[in-house]
């Protein structure tokens, strides 16, 4: 057992506190991360010292530590093993893997081993669904686990898997798997920084016009036109030093892993694309907010930012352009899906609990620190690079008139070759699944979850829908973050609906009543239906009322979509709740 009474040696923290001296609350999350790296958890005395340094009230530090799953206020081992049990991994026997690890270590979820060396947790989707079932051992990601390979996993000899490009990886994924993610030189050999040079030559107005014409809609799920977001932020009152580009790399929507592929395998592209956005908007401050469960992405991005800065691609007078000043800070989340919601993400950077703000006002005028901000998804920004380098005509030549260009899709579940697929808009869901080798073992498809946990279930007879924004809108089937999760005829959809409901109950921030309460009630009902006595005659109406209320009255997008999978499933298979 860890000795909880042992006094904490604060001298280890001193160098960190010195480094942050003079900083304010916005430095809270980075400082908590650094402190936790020292102690493995955040003892009260450490929190007090941090509060003093940053001048944050202790109650507020407590609230922040309590909010984020990856901050621990109780003794926790430095080595935390996190096993994903969300739908894609669950389909691949994550529960069996978890049970084998539990048996081997002699501890259960949330417990620390007797020698104090390892803590075990089951966690929501780790964004590696193509490698299901997966787990993080400290900072190392492992996939394709089986109960029989647990020993290799625990002693670190199981192979670490890398993201691969599939489909027609000619635009956004063009460099993935080909370029050395650790080398600026290699990035430049593969065409890197040509886009920025073109952008500088065009100037901001032409750049925004290009974004408009490219038809790129936000790839984070909300489908807002990129060009308009840049235009509004550019036009908002404020000097460049008071404007921000925030890259949303929180990617925590179950079933989504496309941004990880870019962050890990082409990090310089993310840095370059962010710089292009800064030029368009006229912003001097860049932030890339990466979820805490992507340690490999974080280290590669930080290295890329460092090399770019050394080479003069970040800093003052970039590419010799007088007044083109821009730099990027990589920020790391701490286990909260809600921090992918844009305003909750701002709160996290500001050192607060990730509570979404009421909109309006919108980020383009009142974003990070209340200043004009363009917040863009990773894929959204990287897509612009190929429009710049390959030209607008080439981009418009693929896809459809209303959905030009290409899009990344995350294929997972029962498909032969799960992975990130880049395809031009317009292919059907069925064609995409066939590209991924179809369902293994010749089994029939029972259901496909489109768009993510916040998305919609479709039946086999709906798979001829072309993957375009216009078709998605007219059929009310969200493309969301590009999730296509396939369930064959053997899958237990009641179990999946329980897992999706558990996800939202775990991730609701608790700010507004309908979501805070409804996500819990929805999970309880599916828990009973799936595991504990089956459905009652009243369940369906209760689920419909709870779902309606969350969808209609919740404060933010999380609650507004927390019942989407359940409601679309009940439309198609009412018998699931009977």
């Amino acid at each position, binding site marked *: 057992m860890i000795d909880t009474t042992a006094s904490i040696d604060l001298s280890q923290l001193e160098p960190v506190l010195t480094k942050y001296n003079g900083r304010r609350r916005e430095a809270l999350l980075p400082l908590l991360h650094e402190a936790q790296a020292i102690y493995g958890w955040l003892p009260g005395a450490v929190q007090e010292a941090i509060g003093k340094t940053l001048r944050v*009230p202790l109650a507020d530090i407590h609230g922040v530590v*309590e909010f984020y799953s990856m901050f621990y*206020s109780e003794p926790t081992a430095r080595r935390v093993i996190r096993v994903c049990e969300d739908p894609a991994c669950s389909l691949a026997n994550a529960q069996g893997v978890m049970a084998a690890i539990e048996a081997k270590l002699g501890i259960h979820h949330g417990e620390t081993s007797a020698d104090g060396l390892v803590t075990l947790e089951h966690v929501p989707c780790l964004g590696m669904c193509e490698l299901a079932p997966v787990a993080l051992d400290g900072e190392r990601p492992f996939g394709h686990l089986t109960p029989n390979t647990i020993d290799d996993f625990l002693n670190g000899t199981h192979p670490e898997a890398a993201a691969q490009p599939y489909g027609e990886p000619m635009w956004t994924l063009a460099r993935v798997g080909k370029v050395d993610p650790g080398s600026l030189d290699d990035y430049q050999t593969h065409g890197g920084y040509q886009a920025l040079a073109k952008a500088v030559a065009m100037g901001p107005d032409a750049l925004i016009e290009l974004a408009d014409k490219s038809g790129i809609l936000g790839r984070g799920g909300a489908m807002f036109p990129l060009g308009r977001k840049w235009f509004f932020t550019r036009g908002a009152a404020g000097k460049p030093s008071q404007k921000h580009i925030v890259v949303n790399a929180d990617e925590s929507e179950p079933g989504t892993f496309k941004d990880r592929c870019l962050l890990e395998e082409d990090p310089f592209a993310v840095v370059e694309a962010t710089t292009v956005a800064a030029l368009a908007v006229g912003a001097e401050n860049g932030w890339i907010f990466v979820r805490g469960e992507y340690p490999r992405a974080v280290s590669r991005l930080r290295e890329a930012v460092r090399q770019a800065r050394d080479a003069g691609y970040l800093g003052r007078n970039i590419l010799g352009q007088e007044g083109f000043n821009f730099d990027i800070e990589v920020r790391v989340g701490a286990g909260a899906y809600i921090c992918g919601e844009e305003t909750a993400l701002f709160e996290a950077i500001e050192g607060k609990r990730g509570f979404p703000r*009421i909109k309006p006002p919108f980020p383009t005028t009142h974003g990070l620190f209340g200043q004009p901000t363009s917040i863009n998804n990773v894929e959204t920004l990287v897509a612009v690079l190929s429009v710049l380098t390959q030209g607008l005509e080439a981009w418009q030549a693929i896809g459809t008139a209303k959905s030009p260009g290409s899009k990344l899709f995350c294929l997972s579940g029962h498909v032969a070759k799960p992975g990130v697929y880049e395809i031009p808009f317009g292919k059907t869901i069925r064609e995409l699944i066939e590209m991924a080798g179809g369902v293994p073992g010749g089994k029939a498809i029972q259901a496909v979850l489109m768009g993510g946990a916040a998305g919609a279930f479709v039946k086999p007879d709906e798979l001829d829908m072309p993957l375009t924004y216009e078709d998605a809108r007219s059929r009310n089937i969200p493309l969301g973050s590009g999730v296509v999760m396939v369930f064959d005829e053997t899958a237990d959809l009641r179990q999946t609906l329980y897992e999706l409901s558990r996800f939202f109950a775990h991730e609701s921030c*608790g700010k507004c009543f309908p979501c*805070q*309460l409804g996500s*819990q*009630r929805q999970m309880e009902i599916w828990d009973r239906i799936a595991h504990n006595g089956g459905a009652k005659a009243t369940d369906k109406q209760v689920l419909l009322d709870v779902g309606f*209320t969350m969808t209609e009255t919740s404060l933010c997008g999380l609650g507004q979509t927390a019942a989407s999978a359940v409601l679309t499933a009940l439309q198609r298979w009412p018998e699931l709740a009977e």
Partner: protein
Amino acid sequence: MSETVTLKIDGREVTVPKGTTILDAAAQIGIEIPVICYHPHLTANGLCRICSVDAGFRTQLAACVTACADGMDIQTRSEDVVRGRRTILEMLNSTITLDEAPEILELVEEYDADTGRFAEGKRRESPVYDDNPFYIRDYNQCINCWRCVQVCADDAQFTYALSFDGRGFETRIGTFQGYGMTDTTCVFCGQCVGACPTGALKPKRQALLEQGIDPDEIFYQTRRGRKKRSEEAGG
């Protein structure tokens, strides 16, 4: 001259200055929209959503935090609105004890909420904290309206003794490291107790009286506590 907007609420036209909330605009023409978390003197955070109304948008709008816009056509009591309110009340009632929240109980009655609907649901339980001479904290009655946290912080007192434990359904009002109030920055101004709309925060005197304790004894207990605290502060 300030700008105005004109809209319809339950079919009646009303013109209000730009920036007026739907809640206030409705009140001007005598239409009462129910509220739970809203308090006119505190920052409105749009938490309870009981004030949601239907303007035919993608989702309903929380009237206490949404500004009126020209041409809005708002229904404050449509079938959909009532469905949402009833369900919120049913879920709230199944989570915490509303016995000492008469205004919310009135809404439960008015919206015909089924109080047994989520009988099997988990309740948000909490110990009762009797850790200071001035007030008792019984979070079994707490609706998470944030008023206490807000008055303790930027809305009034700037004392910052209160924050939150957990998140989602498990969100509770909490203190640093779970300390008792006398070990926090609390100055016992009593503003949180005054702002609390339920029986979650209650003056100790009242709690002791309710328990049938003799007033002399109450005087002694609460006095002694105050003295002890000032001695601590002085020492």
